[in-house]
């Protein structure tokens, strides 16, 4: 990470980031830019450095903020018409923490509206293009964040991960992404999607950069009662795995997995062996049900969280509405994207009387089976290895007509969220046509730094 000091001016770092953002405008990484405020903050930091004052660990580092983190300098849209006029009155805890260390937000990054999607094509403002191939998707939902890092506009970006939304776009753009243990980073001030699954994390180009940003964001926050005590306290070199044993989830090496992706996973396993790890295949049949479990629990929580958008207290209000029912109904019809509506309706379906036991309760029980399978595996292994996504980045428009095909994208990434365990996505190779392919390491709760340590070791040994 390049940090401002006596020789490197924050203003120059910010100007370079803004210039690069302009050069890359056609990728549509950003929904809005924060140029004036970013330059003003950079000048303040440079003045403090000139006076010999202490500046933070991210002094003058430009970053991209996924536009579902609330921050008062502008409008927080969540990439939805529902919030396209929403000047946030509060600051997300994660934003406050990185900014207190001197990081400078240069713009708000594009996402699928309300973080519902795997390609950023569900954004009300249009899709983000893949940094390797403009005819392909950047992944999602943190597609803007991932492309902005991959295109060297910013050194890191904040993202949110409910079922893969940090890791899949990271993988699609050949960079690193961290979905931490549930409760590591405060969810306060981030537009809520599915509260038992949402995890705030970051995207960057190395394990060390991820480690630095996460160590700043992690820790208890009285404003989010599910946050846990700060465990992100070690130097990365000290977070060594105890067993040096890794399990490859064998259920995800064929059926439905692109052969080039499977080969990349197996090649990565060989690199792990070279780095001194024992790697074995482990069959975990329950993981094949992960996606079905996720697409019950997540929409149920989405339906509940998105019920707050009423066109009355804040956000979009449809015109020509006179009574309360039409304010609600028309506002929500106009303010939500089709995918938001599908999720809300599926959520209300699985929660409705007559279907609750067969779907929602069943899924929560199946979730227990999945958690048990993890616990058993982690008695033997430091981490589990599998791909992040079943195939390399797909073409724009390829899956927009078939929501279920889009959901299949999340088959491997939802598994960590359902159990609240950490997962790091790391670049692992390229397809024959030169598209990036990533793998993920999933570990027990609070082993986040161990996962980064392992992935960094493997990268260095290769």
């Amino acid at each position, binding site marked *: 990470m390049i940090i401002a000091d006596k020789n490197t001016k924050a203003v120059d770092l910010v100007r370079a980031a803004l210039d690069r953002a302009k050069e890359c405008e056609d990728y549509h990484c950003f929904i809005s830019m924060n140029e004036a405020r970013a330059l003003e903050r950079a000048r303040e930091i440079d003045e403090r450095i000139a006076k010999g004052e202490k500046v933070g660990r991210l002094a003058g580092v430009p970053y991209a903020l996924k536009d579902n983190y609330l921050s008062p300098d502008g409008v927080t849209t969540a990439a939805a018409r529902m919030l396209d006029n929403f000047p946030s009155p509060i600051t997300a805890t994660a934003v406050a923490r990185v900014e207190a260390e001197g990081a400078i937000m240069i713009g708000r990054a594009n996402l699928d509206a309300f973080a519902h999607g795997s390609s950023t094509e569900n954004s009300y403002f249009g899709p983000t293009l893949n940094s390797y191939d403009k005819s392909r998707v950047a992944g999602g939902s943190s597609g803007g964040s991932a492309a902005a890092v991959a295109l060297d506009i910013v050194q890191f970006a904040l993202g949110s991960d409910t079922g893969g939304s940090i890791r899949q776009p990271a993988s699609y753009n050949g960079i690193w992404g961290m979905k931490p243990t549930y409760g590591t980073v405060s969810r306060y001030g981030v537009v809520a999607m599915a509260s038992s699954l949402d995890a705030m994390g970051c995207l960057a180009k190395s394990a060390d950069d991820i480690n630095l940003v996460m160590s700043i964001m992690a820790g208890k926050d009285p404003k989010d009662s599910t946050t846990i005590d700060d465990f992100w306290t070690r130097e990365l070199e000290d977070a060594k795995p105890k067993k040096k044993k890794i399990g490859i989830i064998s259920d995800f090496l064929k059926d439905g997995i692109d052969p080039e992706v499977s080969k990349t996973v197996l090649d990565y396993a060989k690199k792990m062996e070279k780095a001194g790890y024992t790697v074995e295949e482990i069959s975990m049949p329950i993981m094949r049900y992960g996606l079905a479990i996720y697409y019950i629990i997540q929409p149920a929580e989405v339906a509940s969280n998105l019920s707050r958008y009423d066109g009355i207290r804040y956000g979009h209000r449809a015109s020509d509405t006179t009574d309360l029912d039409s304010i609600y109904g028309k506002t929500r019809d106009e303010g939500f994207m089709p995918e938001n509506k599908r999720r809300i309706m599926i959520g209300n379906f699985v929660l409705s009387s007559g279907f609750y036991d067969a*779907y929602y309760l069943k899924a929560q029980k199946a979730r227990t089976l999945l958690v048990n399978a993890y616990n058993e595996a982690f008695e033997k292994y430091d981490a589990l290895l599998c791909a992040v996504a079943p195939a390399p980045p797909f073409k724009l428009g390829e899956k927009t007509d078939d929501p279920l095909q889009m959901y299949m994208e999340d088959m491997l990434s939802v598994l960590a969220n359902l159990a609240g365990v950490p997962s790091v996505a790391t670049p692992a190779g390229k397809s024959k046509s030169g598209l990036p392919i990533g793998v993920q390491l999933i570990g027990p709760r609070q082993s986040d730094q161990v996962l980064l340590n392992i992935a960094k070791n493997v990268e260095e040994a290769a």
Partner: protein
Amino acid sequence: MAITTEDVLHLAVLSNISLDEKQIEPLKKDLDNIVNYISQLDELDTEGIEPTYQCFDMQNVWREDIIEEFEADREDLLSLTVENEDHQIKVPKVL
């Protein structure tokens, strides 16, 4: 199970979304596909298994009942509404 037009209309009511005619058929098809997919959980034996509603064994998280200053002031919050009067949010007549 198959999702019917009536189901879509009922879910739209539960969801407080006014759908126009042209959204109904595509939604019926998409929701039906999704429900068919998630129905595969029927294959799993979950007899006697406790549900997992959240992943940490947290129970109630208590805090002292202290009034704290909120970071945004009342006027800022009221300015987000479409209609307000005398520090109150206005809504159409309900009763």
